[in-house]
């Protein structure tokens, strides 16, 4: 839960990065994501991650990103082990494992600095169907609510003598049933109530509703966009043509 909270839940901030046009932030995250997939060697990945860390520092979310990286590392350890067992190749297994961390960080940077409202506007910019946009944004918006629900459910069940931290793996998994069922039921009830509330406030009454916010790129947004694309092009070129895939 904390992994989810630290990694993907937006918290208001006043940094330069927070104030960027959300479309620019999305572009930066997409570029970082793409570069991560282009990487062919661990040292190249280290370079990409260091750029991500620099972006996180500018956005003043370094501590949250560091925590995300640390917690994602446990999953990537699993990826490493499976790859190593399947291929026997230490370097490529490590590459896959670290790449997973980089992918999570690149997406997390966008979500933790972009409010659900901004996210909605970005999606509308791409002319995605309104219902799809609404469903996605609502899902994002409800992550903190579901986290709070989970904590409250855990509290309620612990107060009825449920020992979540005791027993072997199977027992612990079984102990999650009293947590998951109320969580799912609550979510279904809440989604039904939300749908009714939305309809009673004229959701879907007109095919093209007006928008309160319209984004216009400022000079700083344009400059950051150009810089990000240039850096991406340079990095991609270097990875394919200048830097060796592996150290000689």
């Amino acid at each position, binding site marked *: 839960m904390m992994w989810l909270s630290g990694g993907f839940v937006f918290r208001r901030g006043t940094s330069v990065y927070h104030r960027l046009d959300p479309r620019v932030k999305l572009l930066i995250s997409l570029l970082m994501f793409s570069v991560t997939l282009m990487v062919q060697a661990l040292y190249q990945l280290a370079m990409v991650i260091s750029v991500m860390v620099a972006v996180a520092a500018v956005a003043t979310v370094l501590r949250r990103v560091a925590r995300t990286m640390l917690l994602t590392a446990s999953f990537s350890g699993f990826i490493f082990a499976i790859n190593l067992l399947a291929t026997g190749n230490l370097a490529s297994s490590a590459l896959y494992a670290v790449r997973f961390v980089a992918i999570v960080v690149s997406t997390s940077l966008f979500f933790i600095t972009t409010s659900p409202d901004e996210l909605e506007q970005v999606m509308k910019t791409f002319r995605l169907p309104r219902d799809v946009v609404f469903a996605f944004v609502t899902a994002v918006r409800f992550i903190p609510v579901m986290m709070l629900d989970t904590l409250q459910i855990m509290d309620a069940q612990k*107060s009825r003598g449920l020992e979540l931290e005791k027993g072997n793996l199977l027992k612990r998994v079984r102990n999650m*049933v009293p947590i998951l069922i109320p969580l799912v039921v609550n979510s279904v009830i809440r989604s039904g109530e939300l749908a009714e509330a939305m309809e009673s406030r004229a959701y879907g009454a007109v095919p093209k509703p007006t928008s309160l916010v319209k984004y216009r790129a400022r000079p700083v947004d344009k400059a950051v966009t150009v810089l990000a694309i240039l850096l991406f092009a340079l990095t991609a070129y270097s990875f394919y043509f200048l830097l060796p895939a592996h150290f000689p």
Partner: protein
Amino acid sequence: MIEFKDVTFVHQNGVRALDSVSLEVGKGETVAVVGENGAGKTTLVKHVTGLLKPKSGKVLVDGVDTRETSTAQLSRKVGVAFQNPDHQLFSESVEKEMAFALRNFGFPPELVEKRVSWGLELFGLEEYRESSPLVLSGGEKKRLTLACILAWDPEVIILDEPTVGQDAIQKEKLAGTIRLLTSTGKTVVVVSHDIEFLWPIQPRVIVMKGGRILGDGMAAELMLRKDVLDSARVAQPQLVTFFEGLSRRPKATFADPLEVRRWAGGNR
């Protein structure tokens, strides 16, 4: 039974939810915790269950330091009915829902059966024994959560906003259950905004604001302290307001507002 010794608790976001709270609740007492939203009422009771541990100070429940035991272990002594019943109901039948905690505590099957039947009968849920708890109405779910707790017979019973979603008859029944529990020596802590519900029970009232205790005393006295109630944004019971209004009349029949005590007694 419950002892708070200079307890301070700060949430992760830096909000000081409890600020040097010292408090003693004796065995068999009925205590109502009142105050505006964010006053620290729920945080206070979560310390009794061990769900929250004090940042400084100590919370003792029947002499046990809550920092040295788990919530699951402490729950044998402290039962909590949380505000939202949907946060705990998960079993396929009402019967199994009630048996959940009893099984966690290792009760023998015949005792589980006996306790379940007793609880269902007490709260008028017998007809739903085989039904899914998820199909019950809001009020029935609330009663079921209370029945679930009483089934394992804890020493301390905490009710967080027990009247939410309850009709007048059920509220009266609930008040009767609280009195019954008190008469059997149970310690009952009720967190509620519903002053009209609390007034006939005549509990000891703890008024909270900003994580501090503003007032602590019996309902008949504390509910006359308009300054304390206003400061904590707590409404005075209508009966008290009525008597105070009468007392301001030149030829007041009930000149002494403390006369309400007699009325409160008559309401029992």
